[in-house]
């Protein structure tokens, strides 16, 4: 019973969680590990998770916070360690990847939650444990950066939904 429900949850959300994490950490292995960690935690707290109305929201919340922490840790260590390997695969959208990489982890997470996962400001603020005003500010900053880097085609992108 427990395993069946968990298996269903995995099949429904695993890929999306992994992709969202990838957008934040910009590293495939890290993203997959975050996805596994997220679902391991879901199983760990299965008694609580199973009662939730929005299980996907809980998963994205855990994954995004894990991803933010991971990015911060990677950033910290890369200051003192070797640079990233140059043989990493070329992203399918190098310009967007470069802009996202230039954002702060929180800005990145806000954009991913809001524009990739279609979460509202309130849901994003709950997931990231930030006030809605902070989420709006981070969204505006991220969008402004996108406009600056990606050009006029992004002028019509609005940061309010």
């Amino acid at each position, binding site marked *: 019973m427990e395993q069946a429900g968990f298996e269903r949850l995995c099949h429904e959300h695993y890929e999306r969680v992994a992709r969202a994490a*990838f957008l934040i950490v910009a590293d495939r292995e890290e993203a997959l590990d975050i996805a*596994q960690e997220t679902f391991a935690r879901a199983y760990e707290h299965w008694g609580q998770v199973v009662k939730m109305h929005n299980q996907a929201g809980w998963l994205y919340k855990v994954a995004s916070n894990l991803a933010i922490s991971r990015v911060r840790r990677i950033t910290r260590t890369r200051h003192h360690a070797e640079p990233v390997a140059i043989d990493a695969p070329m*992203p399918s959208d190098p310009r967007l990847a470069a802009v*996202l990489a230039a954002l702060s982890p929180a800005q990145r997470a806000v954009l991913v939650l809001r524009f990739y996962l279609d979460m509202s400001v309130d849901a994003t603020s709950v997931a990231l444990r930030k006030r809605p005003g902070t989420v709006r500010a981070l969204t505006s900053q991220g969008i402004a950066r996108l406009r600056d880097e990606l050009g006029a085609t992004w002028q019509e992108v609005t940061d309010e939904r």
Partner: protein
Amino acid sequence: MNDELKDRLTRLAGDARPETPDVPALVKRGRRRRTVLRAGQGAAVLAMVLAVALPLYALRPLRPGSPVPRTSPTMVVDFGAARAGGMGAHGGVRVSYAGVTVIPGPDNVAGVVPSFSALMAPPGTPITFTGDSAGGSVRFAEFNTGAISSRAADKVPSAPGGYAMTVSTGWVSATGGITIVKPTFSTYLTVGSVPPPPSLAQVQITPASFGPPGAQSIALTYGGQEIEPAALQTSPVTAREPFKPHLMSVNGSVPTLAVPVGTRFTVSGGGVVGGQLRSWAGATGGVSTPRPVVGASFDLAHGSLAVIPGQYELTMGVRALNNPRVWVTFTIEVVSDQVTPFPGGSREPLHEGAFVGEFASTLASIKYATLTPHLTLGYPYAAIDLMMTHRGLGMDNLHVSGVPTKVASFPADVSSACVATCVAHAPTWVVTMAGRSQGTAVHGQLLVQSSGSPSRWFVNFFGYVPAAP
């Protein structure tokens, strides 16, 4: 546009290429996390319970009428019934703790309590002295410094440190130590010397029944009993001067005469008496401490060697009027209640397993008194406090495993104590004491305590530092 942004994000997210989730692996990982979580929660609960319970337990009131914790039974030192007179038979000394007799003291030997081991008592353990001790007194003294301070008998020191007590109950005089060391507490009691009744052994010199005029004969009585004449004749006379056949009226020697520590010899009779007390130094042999007999009386209690169990020669010289001097040798075994008075000292580990090995050699016939107790400390780099009481050895220096250790200089022939701290870099080390008072006897006790361990040991040693050639 939002849709364009979402499309580009979706396209970029496709680079993640997530695989099909390995559900069993995720379940296993989650289960492990759950186990760790629950263990941590249990530990936290346990810590909270202990944090509350332990202080409460420590503050619990003692039971009415029980001044000491239940784990601190009274230690009883029973000196038995002391009775005056007789051959040093003043009642045995028994030590019981927690209702168990630690050492069954001999009933008829005076001053017979050896060190006892494996007796641990927490601080504040009352020590009760029982027995016929009318007129006796109990004193506690600082063990290491020798400073004596009188304290009430029922006031057992509870502070960590070394203490000694002297108990005088009529004929019985006992010295011992109470050592309280945190976190475990060891106690030992050693009876040193016992003032014996006078004339325990008597050498009588009487006119010979035959021989030339003025010839003397020597007889030895001990404990009121005369040594068998046959025994006197079993061993040849040890003549230290040219043998004089006409003095054969002085007969024999006593093969072995067992006397307790403190036996007094008195010499009575005619003639001029002189003599020596010589020690036998085991297999090395021949080393002796001449002790002139002044007057006609001497005792082993105050001899430089005789307080230590062992074999001695008592050589009596008799010079009768108009006759040359003749020497008669008695062999005397000075005994005590020490279980094994083996040459080189005795050892009494206070804690099981704390002390292994034994002395490499006796102190006799070597210039430097070398002790090699092989101690397995379990703390190879521990600082070690050496506390030594000794008698007869003027301490100049002390070496431990080749490391010079400065100690204070002590006068010879005075019971002294010294404390030295050194660091042993090996679990086995050698203690070397250099004596500057050569030609004297040495005995004492070496205490070793590791700062890294609550255990402590002491090693009795005795011997002789010969005179420089």
